[in-house]
């Protein structure tokens, strides 16, 4: 049974707490983008994706997800653990020596839920397109999802992949772009202005839809459900998800400062106070 909105919001708060604890514990990692994509990944794994029990690499007869912007590993790990892929207690090993929870996600340590290493940016769309092509060859009607940072689109490989996906009608695929308008060195418009992402994806032959409230779980479910109805119609689907980096922690919002910085003890307590509901911290 799918969780209701209250349960989803509670889980979202818990994932936020996990993210904050993980990066605080090792004084490293990327909380900003993780917090901004928390609602999206909770909605994807808890509501939107058709997933099998357990994990196998081939993922036949289930939907697949690829995280291209691997630095937001904290939110990915928390959502995977709380969706049953591995014990929640293992979140405590994030970025530690001998952990399966490497700084950036990897298949190398055999962590269930991960199908591709990511971290070096710009590679996930090609991988997702390949997986989508294999689904077609296998007669598997399930979908492939991916998530990318907006700054990540500055990598040229994305545009090769975008050209391919429309030219060859990869229409069993939904690529979501986390449009938070920020990257390490500042606002994306200042670092390298990409102009209109909507116009660019459309010019590359994609069906584009926007989710203006990218941190509202009901808006995400509605938007992505609409996105699913647009698959199978000859075009790859792009969702522009407008989010707030650092969402849910007031002092981490409206700045790019928390892209890759961990909170100190005092900041952690302050952030927890703003995210008080817990389903049980790890």
């Amino acid at each position, binding site marked *: 049974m799918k969780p209701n909105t209250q349960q989803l919001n509670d889980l979202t708060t818990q994932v936020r707490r996990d993210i904050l604890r993980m990066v605080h514990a090792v004084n490293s990692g990327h909380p900003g983008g993780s917090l901004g994509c928390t609602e999206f990944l909770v909605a994807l794994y808890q509501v939107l994706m058709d997933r099998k029990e357990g994990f196998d690499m081939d993922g036949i007869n289930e939907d697949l997800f690829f995280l291209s912007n691997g630095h937001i590993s904290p939110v990915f790990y928390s959502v995977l653990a709380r969706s049953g892929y591995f014990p929640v207690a293992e979140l405590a090993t994030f970025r530690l020596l001998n952990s399966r929870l490497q700084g950036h996600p990897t298949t190398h340590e055999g962590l269930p839920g991960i199908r591709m290493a990511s971290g070096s940016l710009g*590679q996930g769309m*090609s991988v997702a397109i*390949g997986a*989508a*092509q294999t689904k077609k060859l296998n007669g598997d009607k399930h979908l492939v999802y991916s998530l990318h940072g907006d700054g990540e689109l500055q990598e040229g490989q994305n545009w090769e992949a975008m050209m*391919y996906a429309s030219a060859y009608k990869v229409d069993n695929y939904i690529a979501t772009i986390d449009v938070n308008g920020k990257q390490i060195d500042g606002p994306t418009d200042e670092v390298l202005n990409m102009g209109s992402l909507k116009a660019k994806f459309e010019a590359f032959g994609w069906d584009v839809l926007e989710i203006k409230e990218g941190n509202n779980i009901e808006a995400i479910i509605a938007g992505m459900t609409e996105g699913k109805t647009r698959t199978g119609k000859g075009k790859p689907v792009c969702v522009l998800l407008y989010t707030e980096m650092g969402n849910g922690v007031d002092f981490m919002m409206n700045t790019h400062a928390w892209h890759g910085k961990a909170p100190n003890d005092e900041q952690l307590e302050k952030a927890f106070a703003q995210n008080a509901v817990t389903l049980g911290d790890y």
Partner: protein
Amino acid sequence: MKKYTNTGNKDTRSGFGAGLTELGKTNENVVALCADLIGSLKMEDFKANHPERFFQVGIAEANMIGMAAGMTIGGKIPFTGTFANFSTGRVYDQIRQSVAYSDKNVKICASHAGLTLGEDGATHQILEDIGLMKMLPGMTVINTCDYNQTKAATIAIAKHHGPVYLRFGRPSVPNFTAENGEDFVIGKAALLSEGTDVTIVATGHLVWEALVAAEALEAKGISAEVINIHTIKPLDEEAILKSVGKTGCIVTAEEHNILGGLGESIARVLALNTPAPQEFVAVNDSFGESGTPAQLMDKYKLNNQAIVEAVEKVVKRK
């Protein structure tokens, strides 16, 4: 020494094409991707026979490697095809993260490797690809010597689980290994001719040159043992140590930069086990240039005469 018969010059890339054609018939999981070089890679037959399993990606090698990695998820065995330069140097990070680190069952098939690409010149003549690929953990690196062996290797790597770099070339060269490929086993050195005075270890197009050199050396009273190292990684260390244990010195020959190639891999094995004099027939840390393959192999000293000279030098160092 054992004699080999050239059954007629053929290009190794056509061996790849023939192997892929065979795989198309025998393994439905094999898929092929190409970056706008179908004719050069001899992939026409596979494309014609299995259009649904053939993916033309355009001039976009990074996307090709990423797609190939993704296609393994669900059980496909992707073979990518383009020139060696665009198969490695251009897409190193894609191979590193999406293929090697992610342990994906991708076969990176690279034609036009080395100087023998010829007239196109140094932009296309990669001499660093073996080094780039052998440094990646988990990557198997194979450089075949003739048509028959390239066909056999193409078929063999489909059965081998894990990332593979298969390197071959453009020019027509002597075809002399077993037609049925029975002498090709991944990771197993092929002892072509036994000898007692020097070991010549060659890979790729230099293997035939090594056999020619061994004949010339025999006439000069030097008995050369010739070994074909088609699999540069994992290296058949046992075969090398056994041979050098007998001969006491070695010449390595390859169409690659002296830095990072087969010769360095063998020097490491010898240094760790039984240090022995070694001479290198390889490109001396330079780029290539335009010219016919024969002119280039002559100018850069990658031929049987260069091997003979290296042998004469190394035997004196014993």
